[in-house]
């Protein structure tokens, strides 16, 4: 795991005020690297108006599908 990735974890943990033992930042960086890499590769670009609650709109819209069956 790169030093940069471990440094990023250390910085985020410090911002969250969570103390990490020696070596923990490198371990966390290693454990999360595959997820971060896959996620970054998607290069998500959503419409400006999309928000977390947009999920509920899709959920509810589809749930009406079986009505009257």
């Amino acid at each position: 795991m790169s030093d940069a990735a471990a440094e990023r974890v250390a910085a985020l943990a410090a911002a969250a005020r969570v103390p990490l033992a020696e070596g923990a930042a490198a371990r966390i960086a290693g454990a999360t690297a595959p997820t971060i890499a896959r996620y970054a590769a998607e290069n998500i670009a959503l419409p400006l108006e999309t928000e977390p609650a947009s999920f509920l709109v899709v959920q509810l819209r589809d749930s009406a599908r079986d009505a009257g069956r």
Partner: protein
Amino acid sequence: MSDPTLMNLKDLAAAIKRRKVSSLEVTKALIARIDEWQPSINAFARVEPDDALKSAKAADRALAAGKAKGPLHGVPLAHKDMYYSKGKLAECGSKIRKGWIASTTATAVERLEAAGSFRLGAVNMVEFAYGPTGHNVHTGNVCNPWSIDCVTGGSSSGSGSAVAARLVPAALGSDTGGSIRLPAHFCGVSGFKPSNNRVSRANCMPLSFTLDTVGPLAQTAEDCALIMSIIAGPDPLDPTTATAPTWDAKAMKQPVKGRTIGIPKAFYVDDLEPGVAKALDDAIAVFKKLGVKVVQVDLPDQVMVAAAALIVLAVEASACHAPWLRSRPQDYGAQVGNRLQNGLAYSAVEYLEALRWRAHALEAHLAAIGKCDAVLAPVSRAVAPTQAETDVGGATNAEAIIQGITRFMRPINYLGLPALVVPAGFGARDLPIGLQIIGRPFNDETIAALGIAFQGVTDHHTKVPQRA
């Protein structure tokens, strides 16, 4: 009268109602069975025999007076040790909450008790519901009744183990990343992960407020549906359920003939153990015989969906636990402590982007399955591994191993879809195999109907493990 401990929930409730067996007899029989099994499987966190026997007697008196409370009158239940019951311990499988007594009662439990059930005790779980195997360094591992050297799956380890061993007719579990479905699969029982926002999470221990779901494990799909019919629907204490439909019994009784099931072309069918692949093929044949149309579906990249899910789960879990990560990090087991720390690695933008992407991901999933009513997929690529081979603790490769076990789980939580696990056969080392019937949003009743139809013509769900 057959052994009441072996009866499924629906039949047991009916037998009590018709006074073929008393609630007291049932409770005594379950307590005796727990005494036999508990030393080998550790399914219960605690049994409360005195209170349970008192409740049973009260239920029998009420029934005799013509005052049955509801469809579960006189049925003893035990739930995962994260469901609060006012005045009772809820230790959440942890050291940190050891001795913690709830001051409120979970809405789901309140509804089950209003329907006539009562508390037999509480069942064990993975520490803070954050692990897929059933290992727990604080309370001891829960063991699989089919083979006690094997894992139960987690995090609802005690729920799966207790229902499989017939120590309780049903138990609530919770599913944030597979925690109902994995124990159902590994322990050979039915398990229902509802649509997100369908069942109140009020007064339950949270792990991820976006992904947590509350649902039952039981012997049959019909039993799961019975519990869902009681606990589903809006709850003012959980605003995320504001749009939740109540259970539609009529929709559940629609014939399955003419329904369409999709089989994924990839991901969920990759690298399956031969027994799991055969169970899937056999189940497809069963559904075809039931008049269900079976088609192949090409789902969007599930690895990306799982990555987004993991970011949401990890960050929310870390946020929930941040105060204890600061003040009591030494009181977590190594694996859970490490996983909670992993949530610190993601930035706020990554997290919020993962939440915003959820609508897009669900739309893409629905477009991919077209008119399918459900998707049928394995729960895991293999049967239950041994405890020894998955005892990874805080090892550096623990996260990779955990991801392997939960591979087919996490996308469903992220997409908020309902999923019912039904026992579908036995594989390597004669261990059970479950398959998940994954529905459309808020179409929980349809997957219940498919599961009930499947169990109407198969008998995998009736098999009971024998005590070694």
